[in-house]
């Protein structure tokens, strides 16, 4: 029996995160990094920065309709490769994993975790069904696809060979179809060439002055074409081990390369938003294919090779008509004759670019790439409303209340959708009274009910998980969820190392036995303590001084007792008033259990005494801080944050109101 406290990832700290999104995200929510086309069925696979791989049907009559999404990554998908005749897809992501997918059905078969940093590029040797992966950790791993696809839960080991020697992070990788040669490009401005069969280094190609972002190898392995951030495209001859041609069509980094079948022409996409088609032998013959709206990230032929699919920083995927090869010639002296034509467009959605957390620490405002503002509820993991094209800062100011609640989550926008991250340190910091925190669920009577946002959320996230208990199960422990609300079932929950490396990804409604096991092994103890064992997160206490107001004292200065009290930070001022009444002034009301003069814990649900005086204490006692009269609903930490604003202990002064007695 696996103890859920067994943290197999070593001593690294773990965090929990989830994404607020729709059940189905049919459109790319951010740029698209890579494309692969299955010629047999016309399926176009696109790997997005929103961590999702989508599949489109590009056959003639289907008009590029959306087929399905392949979701399992948690960060940008950097590269994809279609193998085994289109049956399997291999993907590489910034979450440092390489995943093997069943391409037709669209589910993830296995995950390879050998890389220690972002995996940037894949290379495919078709004849051998071999795939290589490389990334920022300077390592290159070689995989045999057939072995990979045969992995199952029981047979889950695979051997891999690795190529060593790269001195810097690797940003591009290419193999020839026969798998006799593999090249990598890195910010050390050189292309390294190995023989994957023997894992030996063959040569280093020097010439570029900046990072190499794209490499293509000819089928015979004799020529290599590389695109670099210095804006040039270089053609290298393997036999001579040197550069034989440099093409200067672009003004900024060349990020995508596509070769024609005969290796006669190169189609290049660049950061300067242009796509050119250039003849290798005679670079003066170059024609502009199109000018995109944003830097071009990847290129792929369409089904009949009449056009080229291009992806950019925008989420649209467009297909552009390619000029005929014989038309690729020098521009007219009168000026370039540009005849660009867009054949197709797979429209994408918007990515969220900016966010602001509101003071209630429950809602966030976001602004996306179309300048639309939206309001999200983090606690319930939903989008509340779209506000349209309003002024972002104004909305933030409008919606910020004068309440202070500690931070208990962080927001990450790397994938274009809000990813909420909870970590051990802050997760349980937000204690809040029910009527402020969950006004829609709070009973008007139970003013003393205290809730913890982090605890509520985690319980809701793991509602459908059946953990393994240490203690015998009983009715109490079987209560699932937080008892107030549920969160959307499609929300993916991720356990990862602080610093990003993913351990487990769970989508709640597919919580099968495998996932349960994963969770058992990987969910950190700070989560399980609260969610499973139902332990109470700790309270945060504030010390403060309670003094009669100078106006009240009237010459009895020596009798002033400066009470130093400690209380939970979320209690409201009316509680202090109560304390003044009961303990200090010794009025006739029965003592309530709201305050402690020593460090005893406050129970979460106060049984407030309604007996005794009918007049609420706040009507009889006035509480001031820094000579500001306090709203009885305000809690101590809010007072400290907005009114006290100093270091040193909070100090309250009390005064009797005229209607006292």
């Amino acid at each position, binding site marked *: 029996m696996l103890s859920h406290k067994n943290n197999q990832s070593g001593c690294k700290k773990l965090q929990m995160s989830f994404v607020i999104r729709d059940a189905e995200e049919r459109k790319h929510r951010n740029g698209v990094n890579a494309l692969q086309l299955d010629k047999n069925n016309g399926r176009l696979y696109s790997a997005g920065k929103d961590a999702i791989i989508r599949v489109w049907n590009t056959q003639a009559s289907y008009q590029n309709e959306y087929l399905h999404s392949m979701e399992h990554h948690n*960060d*940008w998908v950097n590269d994809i490769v279609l193998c085994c005749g289109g049956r399997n897809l291999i993907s590489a992501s*910034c979450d440092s994993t390489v995943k093997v997918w069943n391409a037709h059905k669209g589910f993830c078969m296995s995950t390879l975790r050998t890389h220690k*940093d972002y995996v940037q590029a894949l290379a495919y040797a078709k004849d051998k069904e071999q795939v290589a992966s490389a990334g*920022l950790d300077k390592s290159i791993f070689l995989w045999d696809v057939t072995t990979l696809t045969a992995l199952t839960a029981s047979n889950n080991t695979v051997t891999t060979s690795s190529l060593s020697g790269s001195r810097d*992070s690797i*940003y591009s990788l290419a193999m020839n179809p026969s798998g006799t040669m593999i090249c990598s490009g890195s*910010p050390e401005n050189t292309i390294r060439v190995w023989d994957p069969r023997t894992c030996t280094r063959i040569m280093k190609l020097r010439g570029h002055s900046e*990072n190499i972002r794209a490499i293509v190898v000819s089928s015979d392995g004799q020529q290599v074409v590389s695109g670099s*951030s210095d804006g040039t495209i270089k053609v290298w001859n393997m036999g001579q081990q040197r550069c034989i041609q440099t093409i200067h069509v672009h003004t*900024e*980094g060349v990020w995508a390369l596509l070769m024609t079948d005969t290796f006669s022409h190169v189609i290049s996409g660049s*950061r300067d938003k242009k796509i050119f088609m250039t003849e290798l032998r005679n670079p003066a013959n170059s024609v502009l294919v199109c000018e995109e709206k944003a*830097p071009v990230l990847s290129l792929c032929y369409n089904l009949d090779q009449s056009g080229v699919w291009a992806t950019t*920083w925008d989420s649209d995927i467009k297909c552009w008509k390619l000029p005929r090869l014989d038309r690729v010639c020098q521009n007219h002296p009168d000026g370039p004759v540009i005849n660009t034509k867009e054949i197709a467009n797979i429209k994408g959605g918007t990515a969220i*670019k900016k966010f602001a957390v509101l003071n209630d620490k429950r809602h966030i405002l976001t602004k996306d790439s179309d300048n639309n503002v939206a309001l999200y509820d983090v606690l319930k993991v939903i989008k509340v409303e779209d506000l349209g094209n309003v002024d972002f800062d104004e909305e933030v100011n409008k919606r910020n209340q004068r309440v202070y609640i500690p931070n208990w989550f962080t927001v*990450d*926008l*790397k994938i*274009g959708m809000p990813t909420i991250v909870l970590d051990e340190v802050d997760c349980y910091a937000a204690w809040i009274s029910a009527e402020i925190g969950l006004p829609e669920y709070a009973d008007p009577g139970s003013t003393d009910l205290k809730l913890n946002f982090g605890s509520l959320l985690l319980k809701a996230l793991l509602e459908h998980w059946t953990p393994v208990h240490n203690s015998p199960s009983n009715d109490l422990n079987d209560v699932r969820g937080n008892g107030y609300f549920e969160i959307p079932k499609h929300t993916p929950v991720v356990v990862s190392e602080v*610093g*990003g490396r993913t351990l487990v990804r769970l989508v709640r409604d597919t919580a099968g036995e495998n996932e349960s096991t994963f969770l058992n092994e990987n969910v950190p103890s700070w989560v399980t303590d609260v969610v499973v064992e139902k332990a109470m997160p700790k309270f945060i206490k504030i010390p403060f001084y309670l003094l009669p107001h100078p106006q009240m004292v009237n010459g009895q200065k020596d009798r002033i007792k400066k009470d130093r009290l400690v209380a939970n930070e979320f209690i409201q001022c009316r509680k202090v008033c109560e304390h003044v009444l009961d303990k200090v002034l010794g009025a006739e009301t029965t003592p309530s259990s709201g305050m402690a003069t020593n460090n005893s814990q406050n129970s979460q649900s106060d049984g407030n005494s309604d007996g005794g005086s009918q007049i609420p204490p706040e009507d009889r006692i006035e509480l001031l801080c820094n000579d500001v009269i306090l709203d009885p609903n305000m809690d101590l930490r809010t007072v400290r944050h907005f009114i006290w604003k100093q270091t040193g202990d909070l100090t309250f002064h009390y005064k009797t109101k005229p209607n006292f007695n």
Partner: protein
Amino acid sequence: MFSGCQKMLVPIPDLSSTLLTRYQPGHQPLALRNSCRNDLDVAVRSRDSFNKKILKQNNAARALDLNKNIENQCALQQQENKQVERELEFKSNKHQCKVHFVDDKIKRKKKLSLSLNRENRPTQANETNSVKSQQNSPLKKRLKTWEMHEYMQHQTGASSSNDYILNSKTSHNSDDNSYNQKKQITTTMATLCNIGNTCYLNSVVYTLRFAPRFLHNLHHVCDDMSEITQKLVYNKAKSASLGRNIGGIQGPNTRSLSTKDLASIGSFVDVPKTNRQIATEKLHELYTHLYRNEVIESTEAFHADTFLNAVQDVSSIFEGNQQQDAHEFLMCVLDSIRETCNSLTKVITECPDIVANGFVSLPEKIEVQTTSQRKTMVQSLFRKLSKDDKSKMNRNDVAMKDADAKDTNNQKCGVISNLDDELLCANDKEKNMEKVNEKIKKMGVDFFTEDFEGVTCSSTKCLSCETITEQKETMIDLSVPITGYENLDQLDDPNLFIQNLCITREQFRGENKYRCEVCTGLTEAIRTVSYPILPRLLIIQLKRFSGGMEKINNYIPTPFNLQCFCSKCCLLPESEKLHTYRLYSVITHVGATLSVGHYIAYTTSLDNYKDYHDCPKDKRKNQPNPASSIPPVGSQNAEKSQGLMKKYIFKSRATSSGDVTRNIKNLNGSVKNLTNGIDKTAPNGSISCQSINCCGILMKNSPGTSLSKLNININGVSDHLRHNSYVDNLPNSSLNDDCGNFGGSASSFSKQSEPLWFMCDDDKIKTMTQREFEELLSPNKKIMVTPYLLFYARMDLR
């Protein structure tokens, strides 16, 4: 640490520090003084052997040096003895060597002689230096053979014929004037006294003195400041007195000052100045004093306590007598100068009125301004720049510097933060702005930005989206990190060593990724630091410390010519670079740790031919102006300068003034038109700015002396133009501006002279050739001199 001490035993550095810590203002008991002397003796003794070596190597040159130096020494001795009584009144810490050293030997002898003098002073008896002479006998003999002879001619009544130390005695008897007439005047330089661990201050002051054009610029800024202050006071008084002419020229009809007027004056006299402005002024004053000392050939080391106090008011770090960091001190001084320049610029831009005809005009010529105008002006002149202003200025300056550096001044005055239309007298705001800009440029008021400020650019490139974010900042010095693990074997070119450490490249990867705003996430990035603009006067700090208190004493090469590595020059091949930098000063730190040590400055004068010439501000002084107190340059040079001299000479030395005047006259006679070291007309006919007579550097020289070969003619307009051997090494030396190489005359001297460096160790200044200095800095020495601050001046090659 004296040059030539490399082979000294280890205790010597401690010696220096102990010597320093003993310096206390106030009296020092005789016993202590004696013990000091003993320490010196120890030092001296060990140095003997080394000195012998040096002598063997450079006998001829040294002989000649010695010749001159001893003569010099005689003259100085005489003067010194005249001041014997005065000496006793001064603080006792002056008892250490006040005399200028020109060579090891002389220095040593000097010390001995002085100490002996002190001993003997009360008695004034015939002393025979028998004790000391034994120690010095071998050298003494050598001396004797060379020039004792000549020397002895001037000594009358000397009891011992074989002792140079009898200078003191002989001076009583000799006729000063005749002696001066016959004797040739050799090089002297004013020195600063150590007034309590102030070697940090002294080395910085010496360095700045030799910074090309610095004295000139500083003078004019201080000058303008004081004139503006005067004017403000005047105008306030004027308007307060309802038009009565207070403080101006009193005509026949003006009534005398009433109490009312006086009262109103009184309240305005105290125009508040910021501490930084005061510090700048005190620095200028300090240089004035040093110049004076050179003119009157005083051998006293000057006490820079006024200046030190002024700096202490700016920054309390320097309070007390603790040892301080020279770099920190330098930054404080430069900061004060910067603020002064900024205030001045601000005042002028806000109230262009104050500047008429291209310079700050005299009170009568200014119309009475409105009270508010004046108030604003005073406020702006004398309040500390607020953070806003500073940042605005900096940012704008930075923005300005993006443009061609030559246009800096032109564009600079686009920065007007508080310009109020009402203040401008002219209707057309823009026209006026242009005029103001021009005036400011002509006045060279904001020389600090031109000379000291550079721009660093930190450029970060995300490797994913390849967006480059740049951050530009102004800087006044470059800090070069020294790890102690530098691989110097790979160094062919010491130039590139510093360049490589300055132009850095940092990678963000692994756990330390960069948060890219465009990618909205963590990515790899590369950050490079480059320098769009390097200042004309470049300061490089070698950070010989790493976290802890350990000082890193490793050898770092000190290039005398530094290749420019500003952004433009980096792109050009070596033969086509636009600028190059020449070393003009090095401040070295002696000591094993950071907390205890001694600073010594090594300076040289780079020819600044054009420095004092064609000074635009000078021309105004030429205009006939009765109220002006500064004499015009012209044919009446000698007389005017005489008047000038009178101004500067101590009152108690009325007789000496006459002496000096005579000296000058004699100079005029013996050396053609060599007045105060400057020819009245330069070869190309321009006239030197009068500021040279206020706070310049005076190094006298006369033809026919053997020293002319090692010509140290600062403010260098004379027949004996010193020519830096640097020039030979430069490609395409069609040099202009700073280098001061003109026409055919220079080339004829090119072979003759070698740059001369001055080792300035508090009140001891010693000359050495560049070769010697290079040797001093080489890594082969056992006890290494560790350069800490390097000072370079830019030369434009095209």
